[in-house]
């Protein structure tokens, strides 16, 4: 446990409200001025709280509260996180793709899951697109990849689904899918129960009836310890998840899920009123698989076994790079009348140049990635699209790394140093000259596009309220005009820590090491950081590692500074904040360890 001292703001947040579950808004320290950093540092010197007692406690509160109170806890968690300076946001990810100009009816979910079943190309109902390479698994419970989710989303449908937007191509709303409606009932201990009424006569693509118990059984399988799926935790808000996840031998039913096949009703009890539950029911992991087809690990590799309940069904499954997957309409789908394609082909390719050549030749009508060096040229065309994506590219510091402990004495001083380095980064340069895909400079970690529910029930974007003053200014000033002042501020901060400055450069800061995974894009950013720090006499050694090795090194905390990135699993700030609790497997910064 290395991270001992924490901002005062947390004391107020936790001690003041530990017993006030759905009570009044937690108190928050008012900041003296607009300067983002000072308040938390002052606090850190006085306080003595561990990460567990502060951050973990605040996150625990978000699980027991709802609405605006919960939002405030989430914002406080972000305050604590950003006060460490260990998470330095660079930019918000974007989703870049090429779409034939004559394609109509295409749309995407906020998570970047593309839908083609309602799209035609110049009236043609039969065409080929490419959304990625071969899939590791198209089993809805096991898949954790975006391209896999796209395949699954065409073949399966959850209780709710993303509604095709009237304007633009990113869905913002959910609408009933396999469920006709739902009713939400509050229970004891903050529990809530969703009562779904399924549509009448819904069927699988083989014509057999789909029952409420198919949902319950599929969920038990996906959440079970027996399957041990990456995304099993997507059910952690459902009552009974822990017992199901602990059972290694059975698909133990989730005790909070009750199916009534006679009435076509499904009741789901949740441990708290999580605002994103309806969205989860549209997530691939929540899809109802046909369990008697799910035999062995390879059931999904054969088209005849890959039975779903969504708009399309697979007619050919040739899952290899260079191969393809073919879909035809599912005539047993309740909304088949709105399906426009007659045959959709997903070409599978893992090479950007190959994809672009096929797209330019006109054989493929849509590609989901393009070679980096072509972006500038392609961006001039009308078929070039950039959508927002719920994710952030950031630089992570290992809080246990004590490379500078000859000069820096406390965690608070380290935090100041890390934040100063964060200020020396020109995010606009990285977005415009390196990323080139319409990325937006990030002033906080929770990604752009994440929504929060206000006290009056309305929705607003998280980034419009992020920052210690809840004013959307975030934790770093990232305007183009701010960079110079940022650098000046950083110099003062580092000087204040006792490092020598000769008027232009620091002269006695030991070299730091930046770790990234081998890829030209990450390398370019690493080299930029090296140059930017070098200008102030801070030497950054670059080290690259192959992907799996890199993940391991970062997870084990055997690094000093590293690149990182995060994509949300669902549209809620906790998808960005839960990961930093002490025991989280994603706590690469090693907070509290």
């Amino acid at each position, binding site marked *: 446990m290395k991270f001992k001292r924490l901002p005062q703001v947390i004391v107020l947040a936790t001690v003041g409200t530990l017993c006030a579950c759905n009570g009044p808004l937690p108190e928050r320290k008012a900041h003296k001025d607009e300067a983002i950093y000072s308040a938390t540092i002052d606090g850190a010197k006085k306080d003595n709280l561990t990460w567990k007692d502060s951050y973990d406690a605040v996150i625990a509160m978000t699980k027991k509260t709802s609405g605006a109170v919960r939002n405030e806890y989430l914002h406080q968690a972000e305050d604590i996180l950003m006060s460490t300076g260990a998470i330095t946001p660079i930019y918000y990810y974007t989703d870049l793709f090429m779409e034939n100009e004559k394609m109509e009816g295409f749309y995407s979910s906020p998570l970047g899951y593309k839908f083609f079943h309602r799209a035609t190309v110049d009236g043609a109902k039969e065409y080929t697109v490419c959304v990625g390479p071969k899939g590791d698994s198209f089993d809805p419970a096991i898949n954790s990849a975006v391209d896999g989710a796209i395949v699954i989303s065409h073949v399966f449908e959850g209780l709710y689904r993303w509604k095709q937007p009237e304007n633009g191509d990113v869905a913002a709303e959910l609408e009933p899918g396999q469920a006709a409606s739902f009713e939400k009932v509050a229970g004891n201990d903050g529990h809530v129960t969703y009562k779904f009424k399924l549509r009448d006569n819904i069927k699988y693509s083989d014509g057999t009836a789909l029952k409420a118990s198919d949902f319950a059984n599929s969920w038990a399988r996906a959440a079970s310890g027996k399957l041990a799926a*990456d995304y099993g935790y997507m059910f952690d808000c459902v009552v009974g998840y822990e017992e199901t996840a602990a059972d290694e031998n059975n698909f133990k039913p989730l005790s909070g899920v009750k199916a009534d096949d006679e009435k076509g009703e499904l009741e789901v009890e949740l441990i708290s009123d999580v605002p994103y539950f309806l969205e989860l029911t549209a997530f691939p992991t929540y899809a109802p698989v046909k369990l008697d087809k799910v035999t062995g690990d390879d059931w999904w590799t054969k088209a005849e076994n890959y039975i779903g309940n969504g708009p399309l069904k697979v007619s050919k499954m040739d899952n290899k790079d260079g*191969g393809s997957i073919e879909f035809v309409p599912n005539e047993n789908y309740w909304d088949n009348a709105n399906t426009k394609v007659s045959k959709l082909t997903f070409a599978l390719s893992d090479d950007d140049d190959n994809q672009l050549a096929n797209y330019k030749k006109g054989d493929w009508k849509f590609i989901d990635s393009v070679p980096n060096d072509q972006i500038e040229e392609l961006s001039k065309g009308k078929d070039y699209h950039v959508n927002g994506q719920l994710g952030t590219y950031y630089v992570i510091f290992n809080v246990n790394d004590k490379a500078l402990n000859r000069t820096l004495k406390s965690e608070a001083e380290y935090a100041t140093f890390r934040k100063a380095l964060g200020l020396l980064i020109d995010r606009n340069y990285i977005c415009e000259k390196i990323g080139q895909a319409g990325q937006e400079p990030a002033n906080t970690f929770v990604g752009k596009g994440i929504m929060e529910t206000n006290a009056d029930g309305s929705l607003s974007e998280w980034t419009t309220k992020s920052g210690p003053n809840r004013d959307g200014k975030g934790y770093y000033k990232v305007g183009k005009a701010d960079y110079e002042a940022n650098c000046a501020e950083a110099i003062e901060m580092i000087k204040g820590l006792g490092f020598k400055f000769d008027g232009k450069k620091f002269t006695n800061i030991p070299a730091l090491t930046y770790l990234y995974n081998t890829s030209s894009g990450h390398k370019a950013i690493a080299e930029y950081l090296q140059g930017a720090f070098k200008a102030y006499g801070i030497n950054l050694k670059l080290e690259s590692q192959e992907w799996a*090795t890199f993940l391991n090194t970062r997870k084990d905390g055997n690094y000093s500074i590293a690149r990182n990135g995060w994509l949300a699993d669902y549209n809620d700030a906790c998808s960005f904040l839960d990961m930093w609790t002490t025991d989280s497997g994603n706590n690469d910064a090693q907070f509290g360890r």
Partner: protein
Amino acid sequence: MPLPGFAIKYPLFTKGAKTMNKKLGFYILKRVLLALLTIVIVITVTFFAMQLIPGGPFTSEKAVSQESLDRLYAKYGLDKPLIVQYFNYLFNALRFDFGYSIKSRGAVTVNHIIGEGMRYSATIGLIAAFIAIIVGVILGSLAAYKHNTIIDRIIMVLSTASVAVPSFIVSTIFLYLFCVVWQILPANGSDWRGFILPTITLSFSPMAYIIRLTRSSTLDVLNSDYIRTAYAKGASFSRVLYKHSLRNSLTPVITYAGPMIAFILTGSLVVEKIYGIPGIGREFVTSITNRDYPEVMGLTIFLTYLVIIMVLVSDVLYTVVNPRVDLD
């Protein structure tokens, strides 16, 4: 010892070659036993080398809980002591049972991946090897016969260029010209038209090498005494060419061609990626990135078998073409 190129027409089938055949049989047996030893060594080294690289098959950006990891390790037998895993694997691998790909979560066997991938890689590879050898030998001989002429120079410049320009550049340029600009060939290699460009790209580098080998050995042969003798005895140019010179100048090409064919059959990461060929070449790289232990082992052993067989074949062929080689 008979003069090369004269004495033994078909050494394997003539009476006088009986002792030779016996020797050859013993030689092959010896080589097969050595091959088995090689394979055991390859399995051992690959197995332990894979264990040494950090990360495992379930390493992912989003953390998986320790309980889940433990269960997955148990499911794929990765929780057993390393030495037990090793002997299990060794035993199964010698019977060509490479198990399931972990990355597919047990959905696909490694043998299936090899079989499916080889259908494409071997087709393209065989044609490419064929082109490389035929064109390489013809151009190489031509360059030697026209030694120090403009033809020789042109052929040598071309062969240097095709070694020097890496295949990813050749493929990108081909893809751009034939698929995007002229639009005469598909950019995805799913049928025979799509195989044209990758085949040509793949043949470039070995072809260039064969041109050089053939050229220099033909030059050697052309300057040797027995060629002069042959001419002196009144043999025609074509007889000297086919009967005396070509056969001898091909020996280094045969030595090279064995392993070359083994490698070219198992595909190329670059060529398969860029032309979208569902071959096996890319699996060699991705399986390591994925830490898909069974697949890495399966592919390595498969390639080892192939190389060993091809080297054996080329060694045997070598003795047929060049009786000077003593199998002992």
